[in-house]
């Protein structure tokens, strides 16, 4: 039996179905991401697990117990909110101690665990500060420490990194993954950022219109997308003769699909090409190895695995999707 299971979980707001019969089994210690565009039902799902939204149907079980029968305050879940939701009138230490205080942990034990957890997130020196005196990244760590200190059965992360700038976000991703591995807490992350979901998760749940389109390890979902939606949501794709080809899997060859380079963009570690072919635009990504690359306006031939280059003469359509 799995650790956490969602069984046919649904939520309707009036006539709108936000979550439509979602079934998911999460193992102990696993890191699972709910990934999808805004309005796909991922946040509603998280709120139902947390207990802030009442499901219209289905069940949520934690180690076999009915979680829906428990009040939100009794579920013992750690939550990191998108806005961090720190208590602005309390210091960092008071924020982190709050959950322990609610559990009735004695003062000595409390300050010991608060200290340990703040060390874990690298904020040992900030105990006396107020949230407004901290940067966004630091506030984020306090929120994480506050959720982890109560040793939650499950850690719920609601778009925790979306308010950080790109570089900091990347650093926090690495750190978040390390911390999660260290403490081993079962974690559910809600995000619209496919790169973030792929970087952090053991498995991703790609959601659309309240349903799970695909559940699987990030690499599998990327390489073998179950639906066109998944293919488009997880990075760039070209749809050629009904098969999807990732732009980085196409190379320039001496024969193959003929085309002409329309644009070439240098992005440091790789080149991004838009190639005009008989059927339409094809996006090509080539790693920057230092070799000379075709320039704009040059005639090229495109080849990729699985399809003999000479056989590709049909309709080509290029799609580009980034998780915004």
């Amino acid at each position, binding site marked *: 039996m799995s650790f956490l299971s969602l069984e046919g979980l649904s939520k309707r707001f009036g006539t709108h179905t936000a979550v439509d019969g979602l079934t998911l089994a999460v193992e102990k210690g696993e890191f699972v991401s709910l990934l999808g565009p805004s309005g796909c039902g991922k946040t509603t799902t998280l709120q139902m697990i947390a207990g*802030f939204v009442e499901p219209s149907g289905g069940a949520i079980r934690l180690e076999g117990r009915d979680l829906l029968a428990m009040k939100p305050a009794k579920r013992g879940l750690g939550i990191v909110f998108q806005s961090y939701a720190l208590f602005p009138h309390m210091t960092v230490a008071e924020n982190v101690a709050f959950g322990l205080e609610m559990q009735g942990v004695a003062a000595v034990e409390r300050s010991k665990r608060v200290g340990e957890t703040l060390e874990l997130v690298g904020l040992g020196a900030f105990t006396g500060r107020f949230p407004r005196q901290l940067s966004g990244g630091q506030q984020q760590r306090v929120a994480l420490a506050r959720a982890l200190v109560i040793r939650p059965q499950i850690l719920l992360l609601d778009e925790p990194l979306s308010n950080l700038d790109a570089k900091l976000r990347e650093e926090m991703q690495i750190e978040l993954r390390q911390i999660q591995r260290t403490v081993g807490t079962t974690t559910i992350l809600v995000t619209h950022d496919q790169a973030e979901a792929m970087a952090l998760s053991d498995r991703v749940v790609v959601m659309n219109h309240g349903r799970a389109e695909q559940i699987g390890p990030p690499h599998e979902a990327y390489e073998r997308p179950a639906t066109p939606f998944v293919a488009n949501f997880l990075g760039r794709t070209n749809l050629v003769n009904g098969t999807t080809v990732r732009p980085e899997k196409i190379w320039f060859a001496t024969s193959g699909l003929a085309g002409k380079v329309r644009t070439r963009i240098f992005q440091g570690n790789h080149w991004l090409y838009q190639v005009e072919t008989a059927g339409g635009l094809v996006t090509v990504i080539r790693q920057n190895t230092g070799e000379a690359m075709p320039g704009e306006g040059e005639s090229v031939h495109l080849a990729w695995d699985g399809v003999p280059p000479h056989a590709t003469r049909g309709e080509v359509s290029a799609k580009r999707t980034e998780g915004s």
Partner: protein
Amino acid sequence: MSKNGPIALVYHTLFVTFMLAPILVVCFVAFTPEGYLSFPTDRWSLRWFYAIGRYPEFISAFWRSLWLGALSSAIAVAFSVPAALAIGRHRFRGRDAMTALFMSPLMIPHVVLGIAFLRFFTELGLGGTFVGLVLAHIVIVLPFALRLTLASAVGLDRSIEHAAISLGASDGTVLRRITLPLVLPGLVSGWALAFINSFDEVTMTVFIAAPGTETLPVRMFLYIQDNIDPLVTSVSAVVIAVTVAALIVLDRAYGLERLLVGRSVDGR
């Protein structure tokens, strides 16, 4: 911030002069020795300040006004908190009607309220009592208390309370440890604004106050009906001095901008 041009400066100077001139004139007149209102003058005297001592009803009316304002504002704020939390954060049937009801004292002329309360309190046997004054003042200051309390309740991030709940806090604990401290600046501002309105009120109070329960503005109003001497100007000067002193203390202790604008603790 952009600098003011010459026209703007002239405008602001005129505006501030227009606002402050009556107050300054009252203060000047308070220091004149004549038995009537004379301004300008070249002689100065503290005569009319000593005179206040001979009218103990002014002093008792001042304390009564203070207590009336403090009490009615406190009760109005106490009513405002649950009302603001309900109106500000929930959608329910009758919500708009409830808001309109609480705000309605703003629309009704105070003279009408005064006559209505006079009749009503006489029927109830509360005519001319301090309790009657408190009840009537609660009604007129409630919109001011509610406005600022509501502003801070609406601005409150629900996920902060959700965070507290997820950490195991009961509803009562969330209210006491999280919600109330976060709306406190709004409550303090609401109380202050309500107090000012209560202290100031004369149109309604003049109908329902009786000898022995007159507030300071009512006492002054009744006095100038029968007298032409500058006693009321010296009383006014004292009230102005007390107000200025209170504002300075509040500004040092709390920040006036925060008090009157009702900004929350974390500056949002």
